[in-house]
């Protein structure tokens, strides 16, 4: 029988894959994809707890706000990546290296 722990397992896998993507990718757009995986994993947790847990909708409401914030964050982050590309002709993070020390 499928229950709460199985959903938590899927979300844990999504979270860890997101972390892995963030840690290993050099391309800024790819790092953003990893961040989206992390946010999806949190949302899956929230909805699963809402279904099996106390039965209130607080988790689902929280999840909706997470989705809205993800959209705003993605818009701003991509605007910054596009400017990086315009200035350096690269979307790669290791070429963003004037600030050091």
């Amino acid at each position, binding site marked *: 029988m499928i229950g709460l722990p199985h959903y*938590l397992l899927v979300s844990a896998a999504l*979270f860890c894959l*997101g*972390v892995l993507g*963030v840690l290993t990718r050099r391309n*800024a757009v790819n*790092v*953003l994809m*990893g*961040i989206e995986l*992390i*946010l999806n*994993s*949190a*949302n899956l*947790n*929230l909805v*699963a*707890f809402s279904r099996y*847990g*106390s039965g*209130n909708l*607080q*988790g689902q*409401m*929280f999840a909706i*706000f*997470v989705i809205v*914030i993800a959209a*705003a*964050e993605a818009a*701003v*982050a991509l*605007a*910054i*990546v596009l*400017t*990086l590309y315009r*200035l*350096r002709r690269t979307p790669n*993070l290791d070429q*963003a*290296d*004037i*600030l*050091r*020390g």
Partner: protein
Amino acid sequence: MPEVLKSLPRFLPEIALTAALLLVVLVDATGIKARNALSRLLTALGLAAALALSLADHGVPSETWSGMLVADPMGSFFKALLVGASLVVALAFTFRNSAELHGLGQGEFHALLLAVTLSNLLLASANDLAMLYLALEMVSITSYVMVAYFKGDRMSNEASLKYVLFGAVSTGAMVYGMSLLYGLTGSTSLPTIRAFLSEGLTDQNRFAVYLIALLIFAGFGFKTAAVPFHFWCPDVYQGAPTPVTAFLSVAPKAAGFSIMLRFFFGGLSSHGATPWDLSGLIDWTWLLMLISVLTMTVGNVAALTQTNMKRLLAYSSIAHAGYVMMGVVALSENGARALMIYLLAYVVMNLGAFLVVTLVHKQDGTFDLRDYAGLSKRAPGLTFAMAIFLFSLMGIPPLVGFMGKFYVFAAVIERGPSYWAYGTIGAVNAAIGAYYYARVLKTMIIDEPHVEKPAFRLPTADLAWIAALAAANILPLLFWSRVEAWARASLSIYAGL
């Protein structure tokens, strides 16, 4: 509807800020000639109104907006502090006296400043995990945009890129932790979480709470630039326009500490005799202590070798976050009061130091410490003011920075002998800090300049602000009992009792 009518009177500062924000956006969109002056005026008026309204709130601690926010004296204290910091930034750091911002559009800048301030106030009074996360992300996203304010500047762009990616990952970890906390307690409301946790935990669940707290701390650590979530901080402070750096180094940090206080005291502690009584439930102290020690040590040691003033002040602000955390570590009423007093002092001394850096950059076009040589001869008044700010940052009496340090160390030491080693590490750190602040002073006063430069000519408005900030570092000592009484009266926190 009755809930809205009940909440509105406690929500006036936020309403003033929102109205000013929308007006600034509208005025800027009209494209009229006077829009820059008008947007600055509207911003100043909105912030001044919000400051007055925050100070005027004397109601009983209660939930507002159906439990999304709380209105309590601690919230009002932080609101006044946060709005005050924004007001100083809006008035003292003008587009005229910043070589970096000169000639850029002002409307967007002021709209963003108002938006961050509004978000800071929401963060300082959040009472529900959803609201907390939303407010924290509002602060972050508006800050990302402010850092990227120079269009076409590589450093500004790179700084904002690092900021946005680091911030998104930290807050992602935080929201994952919050989702687990919801699963554990069945609620997103902080008082309900507190009530649930105070019923006791099994050993398995204790492990879960530790992990959840670590994940959530990633978000708070990011906002307050605590180690190991500080990596963005030096780059962002160096790359951002200096007025934005000055703002980021005080306001979001203070908001982060306010929510850290509210979360650890109001959400993750047991019911005791008072809201500040943290007997029993979970042993946070060693974890927070470790983070605090790492934060101040990393900040101070890295600051020793910096030659760029913005980077130096960035590392110094990391170190100060470590001292402020001593107030959280003490987990006592006196600790919370010490934290508030430290933040008050930190706002005036740090903004003052950044204002001097801005003015030197306007005159000489440099942030390099080596170019500060001989400044005392060219601008004796400015050097004197900088000396006050730096002595205050060191914690030398009789300046407000000393009072801040005095209260946090006292709060830690009175907790008993097991805290004394921690207090000693803090004292050693303060000594390391004194060394690099003194190095700046030595450069300004003793070192010979490489080339002769003309004397400083500062506009009266800038001189007045420098003098006002310097006075703010000294004069509060004259009526210290009232400052302390304000902090003491602000110690009331709403915790669902």
